[in-house]
C-alpha cells in the first residue's frame, strides 16, 4: 500500500495547505535553532573550559614564590647547593629546570633530587607552602671562577621563574 502511495505523493501537483507549510517551516526553524544552540553551547563550553584552565594556571603561577635561603658553590667539589623556601601561597611547587649563568655564559646543569634541609629526600619532590629544601647542581659545563658573580635561575613546572645571584 505504501509503495503505491509514494509516486502519487511525488507527482501530486496540488498545493499544500497554509497550516501544514507553516508547521513545516516552523519545525525546520526550530530544529535549526536547536542545532545552532547546541553547537554554540558546545563551543562555549570548550572555550570556558580552556579559559578556566588558563586562568587557573596563571593564578597558580602567580601564587608561587620561592626564595633562595643560600646558594653555595665549592668545597669540596664544584657543585652548587641551592637552598630554597616556598614562601608563596600555593603547594606543590615543582622544579623543572635550573640555569646557571653570567653575562657571557649559560649552563643548564643536571640537578639532584629535592631534599629537606635535614638531608632526607622529599617524597613528592615538590615544596609545599612553608617547606624548605635543597638540591645540588652538578656537571656544570665549566668550573666557575672563584670570586666571580653568577646567577642561578629556577624554573618551576607551572612556569614561574626565580633567580638569585651568588659569588663563586
Amino acid at each position, binding site marked *: 500500500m505504501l509503495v503505491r502511495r509514494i509516486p502519487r505523493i511525488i507527482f501530486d501537483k496540488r498545493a499544500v495547505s497554509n497550516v501544514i507549510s507553516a508547521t513545516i517551516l516552523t519545525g525546520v526553524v526550530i530544529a535549526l535553532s536547536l542545532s545552532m544552540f547546541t553547537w554554540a553551547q558546545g563551543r562555549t563550553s570548550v572555550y570556558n573550559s580552556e579559559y578556566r584552565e588558563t586562568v587557573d594556571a596563571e593564578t597558580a603561577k602567580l601564587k608561587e*614564590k620561592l626564595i633562595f635561603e643560600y646558594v653555595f658553590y665549592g668545597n669540596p667539589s664544584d657543585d652548587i647547593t641551592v637552598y630554597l623556601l616556598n614562601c608563596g601561597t600555593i603547594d606543590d611547587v615543582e622544579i623543572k629546570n635550573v640555569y646557571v649563568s653570567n653575562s657571557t655564559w649559560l649552563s643548564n646543569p643536571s640537578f639532584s633530587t629535592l631534599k629537606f634541609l635535614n638531608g632526607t629526600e622529599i617524597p613528592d619532590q615538590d615544596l609545599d607552602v612553608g617547606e624548605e629544601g635543597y638540591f645540588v647542581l652538578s656537571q656544570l659545563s665549566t668550573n666557575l671562577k672563584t670570586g666571580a658573580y653568577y646567577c642561578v635561575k629556577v624554573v618551576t613546572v607551572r612556569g614561574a621563574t626565580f633567580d638569585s645571584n651568588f659569588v663563586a
Partner: protein
Amino acid sequence: MVSTNVLLWTFSQNAQYTQAAKDVNQDEADRRNEKIVATDGDYSVSGNEVTVEVTLTNTGAVAAQIINLWVFDTSIQTYNYTSLLNLSLNPGSVADLTGDEAIVVTVDEANPGHDFISWFVTARGNTIALEKEELEDVIVAQVAQGIGYLAMDFDTFRYFEYASDYMLKDYPAGSGSYIVPTAEQVVFRIKLTNFDPSGGNRSLTLHSHSLLWMYYPAVGKQVYWYIVNVSANGTVQPTYSDIVIEFRETTYVYFASASDGTFTGNPDQKKPGTGGPAAINLLLLGTIGPDYYGQNIPFVSVYCT
C-alpha cells in the same frame, strides 16, 4: 543568552585572577614592610658548636616570624643552619638572644679563631644579616686598661682551697669573694679571653712561666703562684702543658704551683701567708701566633684575713 553566559563567565574568571593578583601584591607589600634588625652580634665557639648572641628588633610595620639562622664559617668555607621555632616578633618588640637564650649552630670544624657571618630567614622570605658587635668596643671595655691581648672577667675571679693534695675543694664553683684566707693554701682561677686586636685572629699560647703575683704594699712582701692545668674533675695536673687560647675564645686559667711547670702536691701548694690588702698582677708569657708574647695585667685587689 550564550553570549551573556560567556561574558559573565569571563568576568568571573577575570575577577578570580584579579583577586589572586591582589593577594600576591599584598603579600609582597607585607614582605617589603617586614624589617628586622639584628645587632650586637657575637660568636663564641666550643667544639663544633657556634653560639650566636644577638639582639633582634622588629622595626617594621608587620609582625614577623624568624624560621632559620644560618652560620657560615668563612675561614674554612663550611656552614650550617638551625631552625628557630616560636621566634616571632611584633612590630617594635625586641628579642634579646643572649646568655641562655643564645642560638647554637653546629658547624663542623669551627674554631674560635675563625671568622663567621650569619643571617636569619623569615617566614616571608626575607633575610637579615647579623651585624657584628664592634671589636674595638669590646677591647676597650673588657681588656684591662685597654691594652694588650687578653681580657679578664672580674665577675668570675675565684679562689679554691684544697680538698686533698691535688684535688680542689668546691670545684668548680670555688669562692668568689675578694676576701682571701691568709693561712690556707689556695688556687686562683681567672677567666681570660683572647681579643687579639691586630686583626690577625691569632691564637695565644701561655707558657709555664706565667704566674699570678700578689704584692702586699704595707709590708713589701710578695707571693706568686705559677700557672697549672686543672682537669675537668678539679684535679691539678702534675705537669703543665701549654694552654692555647684561640682568638675570641674564653677559657679558665688556674694558678696554683710554687714551681715553674710542675706541681707535686702539698710541697707546691701555696698560701698568701700575710694579712692585709694585696694587689694581684698577672704576669703572662708565651706566644701569640708566631711571635713571643708577654703581658702584665694589674687586675684585682684582695684582702687577706
